[in-house]
Protein backbone atom coordinates (compact mmCIF):
# COMPACT_ATOMS: atom_id res chain seq x y z
CA UNK A 1 0.00 0.00 0.00
CA UNK A 2 2.92 2.33 0.65
CA UNK A 3 4.09 4.56 -2.15
CA UNK A 4 7.63 4.53 -0.83
CA UNK A 5 9.88 2.05 -2.55
CA UNK A 6 12.66 2.08 0.08
CA UNK A 7 12.93 -1.31 1.80
CA UNK A 8 10.93 -1.04 5.02
CA UNK A 9 10.87 -3.58 7.84
CA UNK A 10 8.11 -6.13 7.33
CA UNK A 11 4.98 -5.97 9.45
CA UNK A 12 6.09 -9.07 11.37
CA UNK A 13 9.41 -7.39 12.12
CA UNK A 14 7.70 -4.24 13.33
CA UNK A 15 5.41 -6.39 15.49
CA UNK A 16 8.49 -8.13 16.90
CA UNK A 17 9.91 -4.73 17.83
CA UNK A 18 6.64 -3.87 19.56
CA UNK A 19 6.79 -7.11 21.55
CA UNK A 20 10.34 -6.29 22.64
CA UNK A 21 9.21 -2.82 23.74
CA UNK A 22 6.48 -4.42 25.82
CA UNK A 23 8.89 -6.80 27.47
CA UNK A 24 11.08 -3.78 28.28
CA UNK A 25 8.11 -2.00 29.88
CA UNK A 26 7.42 -5.13 31.95
CA UNK A 27 11.03 -5.24 33.12
CA UNK A 28 10.90 -1.53 33.96
CA UNK A 29 7.78 -2.11 36.04
CA UNK A 30 9.55 -4.96 37.81
CA UNK A 31 12.60 -2.78 38.46
CA UNK A 32 10.40 0.01 39.77
CA UNK A 33 8.63 -2.45 42.05
CA UNK A 34 11.95 -3.65 43.49
CA UNK A 35 12.94 -0.04 44.13
CA UNK A 36 9.65 0.78 45.85
CA UNK A 37 9.81 -2.48 47.82
CA UNK A 38 13.29 -1.54 49.09
CA UNK A 39 12.03 1.92 50.01
CA UNK A 40 9.11 0.33 51.83
CA UNK A 41 11.54 -1.83 53.84
CA UNK A 42 13.60 1.22 54.75
CA UNK A 43 10.61 3.28 55.86
CA UNK A 44 9.06 3.14 59.30
CA UNK A 45 8.74 4.78 62.68
CA UNK A 46 11.74 2.88 64.15
CA UNK A 47 14.25 4.88 62.12
CA UNK A 48 16.39 1.94 61.00
CA UNK A 49 18.96 2.99 58.39
CA UNK A 50 19.18 1.51 54.89
CA UNK A 51 22.56 0.12 55.76
CA UNK A 52 21.11 -1.81 58.71
CA UNK A 53 18.23 -3.12 56.55
CA UNK A 54 20.67 -4.40 53.94
CA UNK A 55 22.88 -5.98 56.60
CA UNK A 56 19.90 -7.50 58.38
CA UNK A 57 18.67 -9.12 55.19
CA UNK A 58 22.01 -10.70 54.44
CA UNK A 59 22.96 -11.74 57.98
CA UNK A 60 20.04 -11.53 60.43
CA UNK A 61 22.02 -13.11 63.27
CA UNK A 62 24.36 -10.12 63.44
CA UNK A 63 21.54 -7.72 64.34
CA UNK A 64 20.48 -6.93 67.89
CA UNK A 65 17.25 -8.64 68.91
CA UNK A 66 15.01 -5.55 68.71
CA UNK A 67 16.11 -4.57 65.21
CA UNK A 68 15.89 -8.17 64.05
CA UNK A 69 12.29 -8.43 65.24
CA UNK A 70 11.35 -5.12 63.61
CA UNK A 71 12.93 -6.11 60.32
CA UNK A 72 11.96 -9.77 60.08
CA UNK A 73 8.66 -9.86 61.96
CA UNK A 74 7.23 -6.48 61.00
CA UNK A 75 8.76 -4.66 58.04
CA UNK A 76 9.55 -7.58 55.80
CA UNK A 77 6.20 -9.39 56.18
CA UNK A 78 4.31 -6.08 55.72
CA UNK A 79 6.26 -5.20 52.60
CA UNK A 80 5.98 -8.70 51.10
CA UNK A 81 2.28 -8.83 51.93
CA UNK A 82 1.75 -5.45 50.23
CA UNK A 83 3.37 -6.79 47.05
CA UNK A 84 1.42 -10.07 47.10
CA UNK A 85 -1.97 -8.54 47.87
CA UNK A 86 -1.45 -5.83 45.25
CA UNK A 87 -0.44 -8.42 42.66
CA UNK A 88 -3.39 -10.67 43.53
CA UNK A 89 -5.91 -7.83 43.27
CA UNK A 90 -4.35 -6.48 40.06
CA UNK A 91 -4.45 -9.90 38.43
CA UNK A 92 -8.02 -10.47 39.63
CA UNK A 93 -9.20 -7.09 38.34
CA UNK A 94 -7.51 -7.57 34.96
CA UNK A 95 -9.24 -10.84 34.12
CA UNK A 96 -12.51 -9.64 35.56
CA UNK A 97 -12.49 -6.60 33.27
CA UNK A 98 -11.78 -8.86 30.32
CA UNK A 99 -14.32 -11.64 30.89
CA UNK A 100 -17.07 -9.20 31.86
CA UNK A 101 -16.01 -6.80 29.08
CA UNK A 102 -16.36 -3.96 31.52
CA UNK A 103 -13.67 -1.43 32.48
CA UNK A 104 -15.44 -0.79 35.79
CA UNK A 105 -15.24 -4.41 36.91
CA UNK A 106 -13.03 -5.29 39.87
CA UNK A 107 -13.42 -7.44 42.98
CA UNK A 108 -14.23 -4.26 44.88
CA UNK A 109 -16.77 -2.64 42.54
CA UNK A 110 -18.74 -5.83 41.85
CA UNK A 111 -19.19 -6.74 45.50
CA UNK A 112 -16.82 -9.73 45.63
CA UNK A 113 -14.74 -8.03 48.32
CA UNK A 114 -17.84 -7.26 50.35
CA UNK A 115 -19.10 -10.83 50.03
CA UNK A 116 -15.66 -12.12 51.02
CA UNK A 117 -15.76 -9.86 54.08
CA UNK A 118 -19.09 -11.33 55.09
CA UNK A 119 -17.68 -14.84 54.73
CA UNK A 120 -14.63 -14.05 56.82
CA UNK A 121 -16.64 -12.16 59.43
CA UNK A 122 -18.92 -15.14 59.78
CA UNK A 123 -15.84 -17.27 60.44
CA UNK A 124 -14.66 -14.80 63.09
CA UNK A 125 -18.03 -14.51 64.82
CA UNK A 126 -18.75 -18.23 64.86
CA UNK A 127 -15.15 -19.17 65.72
CA UNK A 128 -15.02 -21.52 62.73
CA UNK A 129 -11.63 -23.23 62.49
CA UNK A 130 -12.10 -25.21 59.27
CA UNK A 131 -12.18 -28.59 60.98
CA UNK A 132 -9.04 -27.96 62.99
CA UNK A 133 -6.98 -26.43 60.18
CA UNK A 134 -6.64 -23.21 62.17
CA UNK A 135 -7.60 -19.61 61.44
CA UNK A 136 -4.81 -19.19 58.86
CA UNK A 137 -6.83 -21.39 56.51
CA UNK A 138 -10.34 -20.97 57.93
CA UNK A 139 -10.47 -17.25 57.17
CA UNK A 140 -9.43 -17.47 53.51
CA UNK A 141 -11.69 -20.47 53.02
CA UNK A 142 -14.74 -18.59 54.27
CA UNK A 143 -13.73 -15.43 52.40
CA UNK A 144 -13.38 -17.52 49.24
CA UNK A 145 -16.81 -19.00 49.95
CA UNK A 146 -18.33 -15.51 50.11
CA UNK A 147 -16.49 -14.35 46.99
CA UNK A 148 -17.35 -17.39 44.89
CA UNK A 149 -21.00 -17.04 45.86
CA UNK A 150 -21.00 -13.46 44.51
CA UNK A 151 -18.96 -14.49 41.46
CA UNK A 152 -21.38 -17.27 40.54
CA UNK A 153 -24.32 -14.89 40.68
CA UNK A 154 -22.40 -12.51 38.38
CA UNK A 155 -21.63 -15.43 36.07
CA UNK A 156 -25.29 -16.38 35.81
CA UNK A 157 -26.25 -12.75 35.15
CA UNK A 158 -23.60 -12.36 32.48
CA UNK A 159 -24.62 -15.61 30.84
CA UNK A 160 -28.29 -14.69 30.92
CA UNK A 161 -28.14 -11.04 29.81
CA UNK A 162 -24.72 -10.57 28.24
CA UNK A 163 -21.58 -9.60 30.06
CA UNK A 164 -21.09 -5.99 29.11
CA UNK A 165 -24.44 -4.68 30.22
CA UNK A 166 -24.48 -2.15 33.01
CA UNK A 167 -26.85 -4.44 34.87
CA UNK A 168 -23.86 -6.44 36.12
CA UNK A 169 -22.29 -3.33 37.66
CA UNK A 170 -25.59 -2.19 39.12
CA UNK A 171 -26.06 -5.64 40.56
CA UNK A 172 -22.56 -5.48 42.04
CA UNK A 173 -23.40 -2.21 43.76
CA UNK A 174 -26.61 -3.71 45.13
CA UNK A 175 -24.64 -6.73 46.36
CA UNK A 176 -22.10 -4.46 48.03
CA UNK A 177 -24.81 -2.65 49.97
CA UNK A 178 -26.49 -5.92 51.01
CA UNK A 179 -23.18 -7.30 52.22
CA UNK A 180 -22.45 -4.13 54.15
CA UNK A 181 -25.81 -4.47 55.87
CA UNK A 182 -24.95 -8.06 56.73
CA UNK A 183 -21.57 -6.92 58.07
CA UNK A 184 -23.26 -4.35 60.32
CA UNK A 185 -25.60 -7.04 61.55
CA UNK A 186 -22.65 -9.31 62.35
CA UNK A 187 -20.87 -6.45 64.11
CA UNK A 188 -24.00 -5.77 66.12
CA UNK A 189 -24.20 -9.39 67.21
CA UNK A 190 -20.47 -9.94 67.74
CA UNK A 191 -18.69 -9.89 71.11
CA UNK A 192 -16.04 -7.22 71.65
CA UNK A 193 -13.11 -9.38 70.58
CA UNK A 194 -14.75 -10.45 67.33
CA UNK A 195 -15.97 -6.89 66.78
CA UNK A 196 -12.43 -5.56 66.91
CA UNK A 197 -11.31 -8.10 64.31
CA UNK A 198 -14.19 -7.27 62.00
CA UNK A 199 -13.52 -3.52 62.25
CA UNK A 200 -9.89 -4.22 61.32
CA UNK A 201 -11.30 -5.86 58.24
CA UNK A 202 -13.42 -3.07 57.01
CA UNK A 203 -10.42 -0.71 57.07
CA UNK A 204 -7.91 -2.95 55.35
CA UNK A 205 -4.53 -3.18 57.06
CA UNK A 206 -1.24 -4.99 56.61
CA UNK A 207 -0.92 -4.95 60.41
CA UNK A 208 -1.40 -8.66 60.95
CA UNK A 209 0.83 -10.05 58.25
CA UNK A 210 2.67 -13.21 59.27
CA UNK A 211 4.87 -15.61 57.34
CA UNK A 212 2.32 -18.48 57.29
CA UNK A 213 -0.30 -16.12 55.80
CA UNK A 214 2.24 -14.97 53.24
CA UNK A 215 2.92 -18.62 52.37
CA UNK A 216 -0.78 -19.29 51.73
CA UNK A 217 -1.28 -16.16 49.63
CA UNK A 218 1.94 -16.69 47.65
CA UNK A 219 0.85 -20.23 46.79
CA UNK A 220 -2.62 -19.12 45.67
CA UNK A 221 -1.12 -16.27 43.64
CA UNK A 222 1.40 -18.51 41.94
CA UNK A 223 -1.18 -21.16 41.01
CA UNK A 224 -3.69 -18.59 39.75
CA UNK A 225 -1.04 -16.62 37.83
CA UNK A 226 0.16 -19.72 35.96
CA UNK A 227 -3.41 -20.87 35.34
CA UNK A 228 -4.42 -17.44 33.99
CA UNK A 229 -1.29 -17.12 31.88
CA UNK A 230 -2.06 -20.47 30.22
CA UNK A 231 -5.29 -18.89 28.92
CA UNK A 232 -3.67 -15.64 27.81
CA UNK A 233 -4.52 -16.15 24.11
CA UNK A 234 -8.16 -16.96 24.82
CA UNK A 235 -8.49 -13.88 27.01
CA UNK A 236 -6.83 -11.76 24.33
CA UNK A 237 -9.18 -13.15 21.67
CA UNK A 238 -12.11 -12.30 23.93
CA UNK A 239 -11.20 -8.61 23.57
CA UNK A 240 -12.40 -8.87 19.93
CA UNK A 241 -15.91 -9.38 21.25
CA UNK A 242 -17.72 -12.45 22.53
CA UNK A 243 -19.02 -13.72 19.18
CA UNK A 244 -15.72 -13.13 17.42
CA UNK A 245 -13.89 -15.06 20.16
CA UNK A 246 -16.40 -17.89 20.00
CA UNK A 247 -15.94 -18.03 16.26
CA UNK A 248 -12.19 -18.43 16.78
CA UNK A 249 -12.86 -21.46 18.98
CA UNK A 250 -12.83 -19.93 22.48
CA UNK A 251 -15.23 -21.66 24.88
CA UNK A 252 -16.39 -18.32 26.27
CA UNK A 253 -18.73 -19.51 29.04
CA UNK A 254 -16.14 -21.86 30.43
CA UNK A 255 -13.39 -19.26 30.24
CA UNK A 256 -15.57 -16.78 32.11
CA UNK A 257 -16.45 -19.30 34.81
CA UNK A 258 -12.83 -20.35 35.32
CA UNK A 259 -11.73 -16.73 35.46
CA UNK A 260 -14.36 -15.88 38.06
CA UNK A 261 -13.24 -18.85 40.19
CA UNK A 262 -9.67 -17.53 40.02
CA UNK A 263 -10.84 -14.01 40.84
CA UNK A 264 -12.68 -15.37 43.89
CA UNK A 265 -9.62 -17.32 45.02
CA UNK A 266 -7.30 -14.34 44.59
CA UNK A 267 -9.50 -11.70 46.14
CA UNK A 268 -10.88 -14.01 48.86
CA UNK A 269 -7.42 -15.03 50.04
CA UNK A 270 -5.94 -11.53 49.79
CA UNK A 271 -8.81 -9.95 51.66
CA UNK A 272 -8.90 -12.68 54.30
CA UNK A 273 -5.49 -11.51 55.49
CA UNK A 274 -5.54 -7.76 55.01
CA UNK A 275 -9.21 -6.79 54.85
CA UNK A 276 -10.99 -4.67 52.27
CA UNK A 277 -8.65 -2.81 49.95
CA UNK A 278 -10.34 -0.97 47.13
CA UNK A 279 -9.22 0.54 43.82
CA UNK A 280 -6.05 -1.55 43.39
CA UNK A 281 -7.97 -4.18 41.42
CA UNK A 282 -9.66 -1.44 39.42
CA UNK A 283 -6.74 0.92 38.72
CA UNK A 284 -3.92 -1.63 38.36
CA UNK A 285 -5.31 -3.10 35.10
CA UNK A 286 -5.93 0.40 33.69
CA UNK A 287 -2.29 1.35 34.29
CA UNK A 288 -1.23 -1.89 32.59
CA UNK A 289 -3.54 -1.33 29.63
CA UNK A 290 -2.39 2.24 29.12
CA UNK A 291 1.27 1.34 29.32
CA UNK A 292 1.38 -1.80 27.14
CA UNK A 293 -1.96 -2.61 25.58
CA UNK A 294 -4.14 -5.67 25.91
CA UNK A 295 -2.14 -8.61 24.64
CA UNK A 296 -2.79 -10.65 27.77
CA UNK A 297 0.63 -12.30 27.73
CA UNK A 298 1.90 -8.90 28.87
CA UNK A 299 -1.25 -7.28 30.19
CA UNK A 300 -1.81 -9.90 32.94
CA UNK A 301 1.67 -9.74 34.50
CA UNK A 302 1.69 -5.96 34.05
CA UNK A 303 -1.62 -5.68 35.93
CA UNK A 304 -0.19 -7.76 38.76
CA UNK A 305 2.97 -5.64 38.82
CA UNK A 306 0.98 -2.39 38.69
CA UNK A 307 -1.22 -3.60 41.55
CA UNK A 308 1.83 -4.57 43.60
CA UNK A 309 3.46 -1.23 42.83
CA UNK A 310 0.36 0.67 43.92
CA UNK A 311 0.01 -1.17 47.18
CA UNK A 312 3.73 -0.88 47.95
CA UNK A 313 3.55 2.87 47.39
CA UNK A 314 0.45 2.99 49.57
CA UNK A 315 2.32 1.04 52.24
CA UNK A 316 5.10 3.67 52.24
CA UNK A 317 2.56 6.48 52.37
CA UNK A 318 0.71 4.82 55.24
CA UNK A 319 3.93 5.07 57.26
CA UNK A 320 4.94 8.63 56.38
CA UNK A 321 1.64 10.52 56.14
CA UNK A 322 1.29 10.86 59.90
CA UNK A 323 4.71 10.69 61.59
CA UNK A 324 4.92 7.91 64.13
CA UNK A 325 1.59 6.33 63.11
CA UNK A 326 1.00 3.50 60.62
CA UNK A 327 -2.37 4.18 58.97
CA UNK A 328 -4.57 1.29 57.80
CA UNK A 329 -3.57 0.83 54.15
CA UNK A 330 -7.16 0.60 52.89
CA UNK A 331 -7.67 4.24 53.83
CA UNK A 332 -4.57 5.26 51.88
CA UNK A 333 -5.46 3.31 48.72
CA UNK A 334 -8.89 4.92 48.66
CA UNK A 335 -7.50 8.43 49.27
CA UNK A 336 -4.74 8.10 46.66
CA UNK A 337 -6.42 5.65 44.29
CA UNK A 338 -9.47 7.74 43.49
CA UNK A 339 -7.61 10.84 42.18
CA UNK A 340 -5.19 8.61 40.24
CA UNK A 341 -8.14 6.82 38.70
CA UNK A 342 -9.83 10.10 37.78
CA UNK A 343 -6.60 11.25 36.14
CA UNK A 344 -6.43 8.04 34.11
CA UNK A 345 -10.02 8.42 32.97
CA UNK A 346 -9.43 12.04 31.93
CA UNK A 347 -6.27 11.14 30.01
CA UNK A 348 -8.13 8.31 28.34
CA UNK A 349 -11.01 10.57 27.36
CA UNK A 350 -8.63 13.16 25.94
CA UNK A 351 -6.99 10.60 23.68
CA UNK A 352 -3.59 11.26 25.26
CA UNK A 353 -2.75 7.62 25.70
CA UNK A 354 0.84 6.52 25.61
Amino acid sequence: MSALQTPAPSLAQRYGAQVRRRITVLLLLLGLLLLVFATDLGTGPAGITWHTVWQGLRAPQQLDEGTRVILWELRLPYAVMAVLVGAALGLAGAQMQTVLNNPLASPFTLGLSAAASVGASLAIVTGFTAWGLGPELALPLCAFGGAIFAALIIHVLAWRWGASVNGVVLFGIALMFSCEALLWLLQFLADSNALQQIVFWSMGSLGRSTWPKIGVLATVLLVCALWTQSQAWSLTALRNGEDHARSSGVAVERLRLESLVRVSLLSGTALAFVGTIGFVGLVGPHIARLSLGEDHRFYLPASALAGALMLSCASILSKVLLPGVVLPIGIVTALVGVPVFMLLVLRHQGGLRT
Partner: protein
Amino acid sequence: MSLVLQQLGVSYGAKVVLQGIDLAPLPAGRMVALAGANGAGKSSLLRALAGMCRMTGQALLDGEDLARLRPPARARRVAYMPQSLPQASSLTVYESVLSALRIACPQWSAADTHQRIDQVLHSLGLHALGLRALDSLSGGQRQMAGLAQLLVRQPRLLLLDEPTSALDLRWQLCLMEALRHYLAQHQALCLMAVHDLNLAARFCDDMLLMAQGRVIARGEPGRILTPALLRQAYGIAARVESCSMGLPMVVAEHALDPE
Protein backbone atom coordinates in the same frame (compact mmCIF):
# COMPACT_ATOMS: atom_id res chain seq x y z
CA MET B 1 -15.24 -29.67 -0.48
CA SER B 2 -18.98 -29.51 -0.27
CA LEU B 3 -21.67 -28.53 2.17
CA VAL B 4 -24.93 -30.44 2.48
CA LEU B 5 -27.82 -29.41 4.73
CA GLN B 6 -30.56 -31.84 5.69
CA GLN B 7 -33.72 -30.76 7.46
CA LEU B 8 -31.91 -28.05 9.38
CA GLY B 9 -33.97 -26.31 12.05
CA VAL B 10 -33.36 -23.74 14.80
CA SER B 11 -35.69 -22.72 17.61
CA TYR B 12 -35.25 -20.15 20.37
CA GLY B 13 -37.49 -21.55 23.08
CA ALA B 14 -40.93 -22.03 21.57
CA LYS B 15 -40.16 -19.72 18.64
CA VAL B 16 -39.17 -21.55 15.47
CA VAL B 17 -36.80 -19.37 13.42
CA LEU B 18 -35.61 -21.89 10.84
CA GLN B 19 -37.21 -25.07 9.65
CA GLY B 20 -36.77 -27.76 7.07
CA ILE B 21 -33.72 -26.28 5.37
CA ASP B 22 -32.52 -28.78 2.76
CA LEU B 23 -29.66 -28.01 0.45
CA ALA B 24 -28.20 -30.20 -2.23
CA PRO B 25 -24.38 -30.13 -2.12
CA LEU B 26 -22.91 -26.65 -2.50
CA PRO B 27 -19.64 -27.15 -4.35
CA ALA B 28 -16.29 -25.59 -3.48
CA GLY B 29 -15.08 -22.24 -4.76
CA ARG B 30 -18.54 -20.71 -4.72
CA MET B 31 -19.76 -17.54 -3.16
CA VAL B 32 -23.37 -17.95 -2.06
CA ALA B 33 -25.56 -15.01 -1.06
CA LEU B 34 -28.27 -15.40 1.56
CA ALA B 35 -30.93 -12.84 0.81
CA GLY B 36 -34.23 -12.10 2.45
CA ALA B 37 -36.03 -9.60 4.63
CA ASN B 38 -35.01 -8.83 8.21
CA GLY B 39 -35.97 -11.77 10.42
CA ALA B 40 -36.10 -14.21 7.48
CA GLY B 41 -33.55 -16.47 9.19
CA LYS B 42 -30.32 -15.54 7.39
CA SER B 43 -28.34 -14.80 10.55
CA SER B 44 -29.81 -17.80 12.36
CA LEU B 45 -28.71 -20.13 9.56
CA LEU B 46 -25.17 -18.75 9.72
CA ARG B 47 -25.07 -18.90 13.53
CA ALA B 48 -26.34 -22.48 13.54
CA LEU B 49 -23.68 -23.59 11.05
CA ALA B 50 -21.06 -21.77 13.11
CA GLY B 51 -22.12 -23.62 16.26
CA MET B 52 -23.39 -20.49 18.01
CA CYS B 53 -26.82 -21.96 18.63
CA ARG B 54 -28.37 -25.40 18.80
CA MET B 55 -29.76 -26.87 15.62
CA THR B 56 -31.74 -29.92 14.63
CA GLY B 57 -31.09 -31.85 11.44
CA GLN B 58 -27.68 -32.21 9.87
CA ALA B 59 -25.03 -30.01 8.34
CA LEU B 60 -22.31 -32.05 6.63
CA LEU B 61 -19.05 -30.44 5.55
CA ASP B 62 -17.18 -32.98 3.41
CA GLY B 63 -19.26 -35.66 5.10
CA GLU B 64 -18.34 -34.46 8.62
CA ASP B 65 -21.25 -33.54 10.89
CA LEU B 66 -20.58 -29.96 12.04
CA ALA B 67 -22.62 -30.42 15.22
CA ARG B 68 -20.20 -33.07 16.47
CA LEU B 69 -17.04 -30.97 16.19
CA ARG B 70 -15.45 -29.37 19.27
CA PRO B 71 -14.94 -25.56 19.16
CA PRO B 72 -11.24 -25.39 18.07
CA ALA B 73 -11.66 -28.17 15.46
CA ARG B 74 -14.74 -26.45 14.09
CA ALA B 75 -12.95 -23.09 14.06
CA ARG B 76 -10.26 -24.55 11.80
CA ARG B 77 -12.83 -25.67 9.23
CA VAL B 78 -15.57 -23.10 9.63
CA ALA B 79 -15.00 -19.37 10.15
CA TYR B 80 -17.90 -17.17 11.12
CA MET B 81 -17.97 -13.39 11.08
CA PRO B 82 -20.77 -12.00 13.24
CA GLN B 83 -22.81 -9.02 12.22
CA SER B 84 -21.30 -6.98 15.05
CA LEU B 85 -17.91 -5.46 14.31
CA PRO B 86 -14.85 -6.53 16.29
CA GLN B 87 -14.95 -4.57 19.52
CA ALA B 88 -13.13 -1.23 19.71
CA SER B 89 -10.52 -2.49 22.18
CA SER B 90 -6.93 -1.34 22.50
CA LEU B 91 -5.71 -4.52 20.78
CA THR B 92 -3.84 -3.81 17.57
CA VAL B 93 -5.09 -5.31 14.31
CA TYR B 94 -2.07 -7.60 14.33
CA GLU B 95 -2.77 -8.79 17.89
CA SER B 96 -6.44 -9.38 17.22
CA VAL B 97 -5.60 -11.54 14.19
CA LEU B 98 -2.77 -13.31 16.00
CA SER B 99 -4.94 -14.20 19.00
CA ALA B 100 -7.69 -15.62 16.75
CA LEU B 101 -5.10 -17.71 14.94
CA ARG B 102 -3.39 -18.93 18.12
CA ILE B 103 -6.69 -20.32 19.43
CA ALA B 104 -7.76 -22.04 16.23
CA CYS B 105 -4.35 -23.21 14.99
CA PRO B 106 -2.01 -23.48 18.00
CA GLN B 107 0.11 -26.06 16.19
CA TRP B 108 1.39 -23.61 13.58
CA SER B 109 5.02 -22.57 13.93
CA ALA B 110 5.78 -18.96 14.82
CA ALA B 111 7.33 -18.36 11.39
CA ASP B 112 4.26 -19.72 9.56
CA THR B 113 1.93 -17.78 11.80
CA HIS B 114 3.60 -14.41 11.24
CA GLN B 115 4.09 -14.98 7.52
CA ARG B 116 0.44 -15.88 7.13
CA ILE B 117 -0.77 -12.81 9.03
CA ASP B 118 1.50 -10.60 6.95
CA GLN B 119 0.07 -12.08 3.73
CA VAL B 120 -3.57 -11.78 4.76
CA LEU B 121 -3.23 -8.18 5.98
CA HIS B 122 -1.51 -7.33 2.69
CA SER B 123 -4.23 -8.98 0.61
CA LEU B 124 -6.94 -7.03 2.44
CA GLY B 125 -5.11 -3.71 2.18
CA LEU B 126 -4.75 -3.52 5.97
CA HIS B 127 -0.99 -3.65 5.98
CA ALA B 128 -0.48 -0.01 6.91
CA LEU B 129 -2.93 -0.36 9.80
CA GLY B 130 -1.40 -3.53 11.27
CA LEU B 131 -0.03 -1.95 14.42
CA ARG B 132 -2.89 0.48 14.97
CA ALA B 133 -5.28 -0.16 17.87
CA LEU B 134 -8.79 -1.27 16.92
CA ASP B 135 -10.28 1.62 18.88
CA SER B 136 -8.46 4.09 16.63
CA LEU B 137 -9.92 2.63 13.41
CA SER B 138 -13.13 3.38 11.54
CA GLY B 139 -15.99 0.89 11.61
CA GLY B 140 -15.15 -0.27 8.10
CA GLN B 141 -11.52 -0.86 8.94
CA ARG B 142 -12.56 -2.91 11.97
CA GLN B 143 -14.88 -4.96 9.78
CA MET B 144 -11.95 -5.71 7.46
CA ALA B 145 -9.86 -6.67 10.52
CA GLY B 146 -12.67 -9.07 11.44
CA LEU B 147 -12.39 -10.69 8.00
CA ALA B 148 -8.62 -10.95 8.41
CA GLN B 149 -9.19 -12.96 11.62
CA LEU B 150 -11.15 -15.45 9.53
CA LEU B 151 -9.02 -15.76 6.41
CA VAL B 152 -5.80 -16.19 8.34
CA ARG B 153 -6.84 -19.61 9.62
CA GLN B 154 -7.58 -20.86 6.11
CA PRO B 155 -11.06 -22.24 6.69
CA ARG B 156 -12.95 -24.34 4.16
CA LEU B 157 -16.29 -22.73 4.91
CA LEU B 158 -16.72 -18.98 5.44
CA LEU B 159 -19.92 -17.72 7.04
CA LEU B 160 -20.23 -13.95 6.80
CA ASP B 161 -23.09 -12.00 8.30
CA GLU B 162 -23.44 -8.79 6.30
CA PRO B 163 -19.71 -8.41 5.76
CA THR B 164 -20.04 -5.13 3.89
CA SER B 165 -22.43 -3.37 6.28
CA ALA B 166 -19.82 -0.85 7.47
CA LEU B 167 -17.79 -0.55 4.27
CA ASP B 168 -17.65 2.28 1.75
CA LEU B 169 -17.76 1.45 -1.97
CA ARG B 170 -14.02 1.04 -2.35
CA TRP B 171 -13.67 -1.26 0.64
CA GLN B 172 -16.70 -3.26 -0.55
CA LEU B 173 -14.90 -3.99 -3.79
CA CYS B 174 -11.64 -4.78 -1.98
CA LEU B 175 -13.45 -7.22 0.29
CA MET B 176 -15.37 -8.99 -2.46
CA GLU B 177 -12.32 -9.31 -4.68
CA ALA B 178 -10.15 -10.58 -1.81
CA LEU B 179 -12.86 -13.11 -1.00
CA ARG B 180 -13.16 -14.33 -4.59
CA HIS B 181 -9.42 -14.73 -4.74
CA TYR B 182 -9.38 -16.66 -1.46
CA LEU B 183 -12.20 -19.00 -2.53
CA ALA B 184 -10.52 -19.80 -5.83
CA GLN B 185 -7.13 -20.32 -4.24
CA HIS B 186 -8.30 -22.54 -1.37
CA GLN B 187 -11.31 -24.18 -3.00
CA ALA B 188 -13.38 -22.94 -0.08
CA LEU B 189 -17.06 -22.10 0.13
CA CYS B 190 -18.61 -18.87 1.35
CA LEU B 191 -22.14 -18.20 2.57
CA MET B 192 -22.90 -14.55 3.19
CA ALA B 193 -25.99 -12.77 4.37
CA VAL B 194 -26.48 -9.65 2.24
CA HIS B 195 -28.83 -6.72 1.95
CA ASP B 196 -27.20 -5.19 -1.12
CA LEU B 197 -28.71 -7.34 -3.86
CA ASN B 198 -26.84 -5.60 -6.66
CA LEU B 199 -23.50 -6.26 -5.02
CA ALA B 200 -24.55 -9.90 -4.56
CA ALA B 201 -25.65 -10.13 -8.20
CA ARG B 202 -22.24 -8.95 -9.31
CA PHE B 203 -20.05 -11.14 -7.12
CA CYS B 204 -22.03 -14.19 -5.98
CA ASP B 205 -22.44 -17.38 -7.99
CA ASP B 206 -25.48 -18.56 -6.19
CA MET B 207 -28.28 -17.05 -4.18
CA LEU B 208 -30.59 -18.48 -1.53
CA LEU B 209 -33.69 -16.40 -1.02
CA MET B 210 -35.18 -16.85 2.44
CA ALA B 211 -38.52 -15.93 3.95
CA GLN B 212 -40.00 -16.85 7.33
CA GLY B 213 -37.33 -19.36 8.26
CA ARG B 214 -37.35 -21.22 4.96
CA VAL B 215 -35.45 -21.15 1.69
CA ILE B 216 -37.99 -20.12 -0.93
CA ALA B 217 -35.69 -20.11 -3.97
CA ARG B 218 -32.17 -21.06 -4.93
CA GLY B 219 -30.21 -20.43 -8.10
CA GLU B 220 -28.06 -17.94 -9.97
CA PRO B 221 -28.79 -14.33 -8.96
CA GLY B 222 -30.20 -13.62 -12.43
CA ARG B 223 -32.87 -16.26 -11.89
CA ILE B 224 -33.68 -15.34 -8.29
CA LEU B 225 -33.91 -11.59 -8.69
CA THR B 226 -37.36 -11.35 -10.24
CA PRO B 227 -40.15 -8.94 -9.32
CA ALA B 228 -42.37 -11.82 -8.19
CA LEU B 229 -39.80 -13.36 -5.82
CA LEU B 230 -38.74 -9.94 -4.47
CA ARG B 231 -42.35 -9.19 -3.75
CA GLN B 232 -42.74 -12.47 -1.92
CA ALA B 233 -39.49 -12.19 0.08
CA TYR B 234 -39.38 -8.46 0.87
CA GLY B 235 -42.94 -7.24 0.37
CA ILE B 236 -41.85 -4.63 -2.18
CA ALA B 237 -42.64 -3.67 -5.73
CA ALA B 238 -39.36 -3.75 -7.64
CA ARG B 239 -38.09 -3.51 -11.19
CA VAL B 240 -35.21 -5.68 -12.32
CA GLU B 241 -33.21 -4.18 -15.16
CA SER B 242 -30.15 -5.33 -16.97
CA CYS B 243 -27.02 -3.23 -16.75
CA SER B 244 -24.57 -2.76 -19.61
CA MET B 245 -22.53 -5.71 -18.30
CA GLY B 246 -25.58 -7.90 -18.53
CA LEU B 247 -25.97 -8.12 -14.75
CA PRO B 248 -29.41 -7.81 -13.13
CA MET B 249 -30.01 -4.56 -11.28
CA VAL B 250 -32.75 -4.28 -8.71
CA VAL B 251 -34.57 -0.98 -8.40
CA ALA B 252 -36.88 -1.05 -5.41
CA GLU B 253 -39.92 1.11 -6.14
CA HIS B 254 -42.14 1.09 -3.09
CA ALA B 255 -43.12 -0.99 -0.10
CA LEU B 256 -46.35 -2.95 -0.38
CA ASP B 257 -48.90 -3.06 2.39
CA PRO B 258 -48.65 -6.28 4.37
CA GLU B 259 -51.33 -8.67 3.20
